[in-house]
């Protein structure tokens, strides 16, 4: 006689709850969706950028012209602008964010820490267009009238701080990106610092370390992976940020060494020109820029990974 249906159902539930194989399979499928989405994304970008890839080949990457009238397209001004704004943004936001996270997790009184964390999470939830408008109406006039003239006066001998002060340009875009990314860095870094076991701190203090020594030499290296993760998230956001950047970067397709000059980023040009691009080569060049941004994100992530591995090999490790 067959088993009563009730017990069969129970068996199935048991399999679900205790079954390693089932959970393994289900989570594998979920993880596989990440892979699937990535593959489909690259496939679509690859297919739709065919006319542009066929016409320009690899010279697309280093050509400086972007001329929809003659149909000549090159990605270099956009690659340059994307990399410069993202790197300058991270140079500002990483020390600021990690420093603030250390204070909030290790040194601040808990009540202050909680209040600050609430504010940080609030900042992370502000839509980028709000940051863009804020930048356009308050940061840009400030940059044009005070900060850029000051930089020119004091650091004007460096090639990065020359030329007219428009208030719009790489530096302003990098600043707004820094402001937008640093809540992510604080929030995630703080969580990973708080996750460091108490014994680690106590052991360091027992060995005679000061509180700062225990924080900097034991706790921070232990939380390294989480902090690196926060930097990667910030980098990804900076590379792909569209609205806020296009409002303050000046949207100019030339390449300048000066950070005060107007420039362009990949995400900004796609947002600006995609709706009205009718010519097949123009359209596919914009799609190819998307592909380039994808590749750029991978390359920069790999480089950041290597850089961090090379510089933070010291200290106690979790693994």
């Amino acid at each position, binding site marked *: 006689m067959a088993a009563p249906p009730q017990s069969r159902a129970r068996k199935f539930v048991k399999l679900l709850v205790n079954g390693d194989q089932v959970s393994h399979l289900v989570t594998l499928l979920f993880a596989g969706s990440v892979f699937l989405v990535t593959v489909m994304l690259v496939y679509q970008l690859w297919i739709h950028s065919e006319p542009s890839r066929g016409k320009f080949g690899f010279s697309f990457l280093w050509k400086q012209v972007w001329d929809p009238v003659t149909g000549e397209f090159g990605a270099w001004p956009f690659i340059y602008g994307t990399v410069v704004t993202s790197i300058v943004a991270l140079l500002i936001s990483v020390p600021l964010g990690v420093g603030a996270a250390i204070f909030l997790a290790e040194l601040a009184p808990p009540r202050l820490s909680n209040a600050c964390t609430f504010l940080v999470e609030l900042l992370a939830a502000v839509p980028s267009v709000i940051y863009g408008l804020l930048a356009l109406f308050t940061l840009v006039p400030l940059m*044009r009238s005070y900060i850029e003239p000051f930089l020119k006066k004091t650091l004007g001998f460096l090639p990065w701080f020359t030329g007219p002060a428009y208030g719009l340009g790489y530096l302003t875009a990098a600043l707004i990106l820094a402001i937008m990314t640093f809540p992510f860095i604080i929030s995630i870094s703080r969580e990973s610092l708080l996750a460091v076991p108490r014994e680690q701190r106590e052991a360091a203090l027992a060995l005679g370390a000061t509180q700062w020594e225990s924080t900097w030499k034991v706790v921070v290296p232990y939380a390294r992976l989480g902090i690196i993760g926060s930097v990667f998230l910030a980098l990804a956001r900076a590379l792909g940020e569209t609205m806020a950047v296009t409002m303050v970067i000046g949207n100019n397709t030339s390449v300048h060494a000066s950070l005060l000059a107007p420039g362009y980023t990949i995400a900004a040009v796609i947002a600006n020109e995609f709706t009205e*691009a009718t010519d097949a080569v123009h359209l596919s060049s914009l799609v190819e820029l998307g592909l380039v941004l994808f590749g750029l994100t991978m390359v920069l992530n790999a480089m950041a990974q290597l850089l961090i591995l090379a510089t933070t090999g010291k200290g106690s490790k979790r693994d």
Partner: protein
Amino acid sequence: MTKQVFLTGLLALGTAVALPAAETINAAGATFPGPIYQKWFEEYHKAHPDVQINYQAIGSGGGIRQLTEGTVDFGASDMPMTDEQIKDVVTKRHFKPLHFPTVLGGIVPTYNVAGVNTELKFSGETLAGIFLGDITKWNDAAIKKDNPGVNLPNEDITVAHRSDSSGTSFVFTDYLSKVSPKWKSKVGANTSVNWPVGLGGKGNEGVAGLVKQTPNSIGYVELIYAVQNKMGYGSVKNAAGNFVKADFNTVTEAAAGAAQNMPDDFRVSITSAAGKNAYPISTFTWLLIPDKIENAAKKKAITEFLKWMMAAGQGDAQGLSYAPLPKTVVSKEEKQVALIK
């Protein structure tokens, strides 16, 4: 593709539930005439409850693309379709898109010059020189010549242009190409061009914001945007040699000037048009209607709407700051309606 079918299905289902008897027509295209199209389609629906026209203001390029892909019943554009684009539609969809001018718009130069409160005048060559980066100071001899008696400062000019592709940029660069051979050979006319100098702002509001904020700057915006936001703007020298300030009358006169040599398919640029008071940076905006509409009910609805738009609809134009079509163009257009089979 499946997604589009799904969405259209969903849309059809939604409207079918809400308005059981209505003939639903989908259209997409130019953003510049978006406000008046919305008003027209709404008013027309009130007068004819059996016809519902949905319009998506996604940009001229998007309108042409969707018409080519067959996802809309008709399109709209601020620049006439090229021969190549028309050929593309004919091979893919087996109909020819007809151009129907609907209203007129103008593009005006707007500026912010320290210490200058009078209205500035610009000749075409001067505008081209400024946007090429050849004229770099406000007290340049060329600008002084156009504005005798105005005390212009010895300051660098900051140029502001549109960063997003737009019909506005097309009309402005088309005008500069007509008046300046150097502009034509070096930059050319398109919805987005390789700007020799300047800062890019997104949309009319972006350019207006740049000009307002940046001392000693110049940019260009649509006339309706300048009027609605009460911005000052300069006058431009027309083909007859007069400095003309843009308003509904001077823009309509530009269209009337061009109407005499209007080609039968209405694909014409009216920048730098003849006429004593014609404003030189003016443009039509067009509806792109298929010349073969198989669904008889849709065909009837679209042709009836076109006739209504040319008569009663024109009365709405000025209230929304658009210039109405001149009579000569309307009468020519009425004949084109008969071509829709």
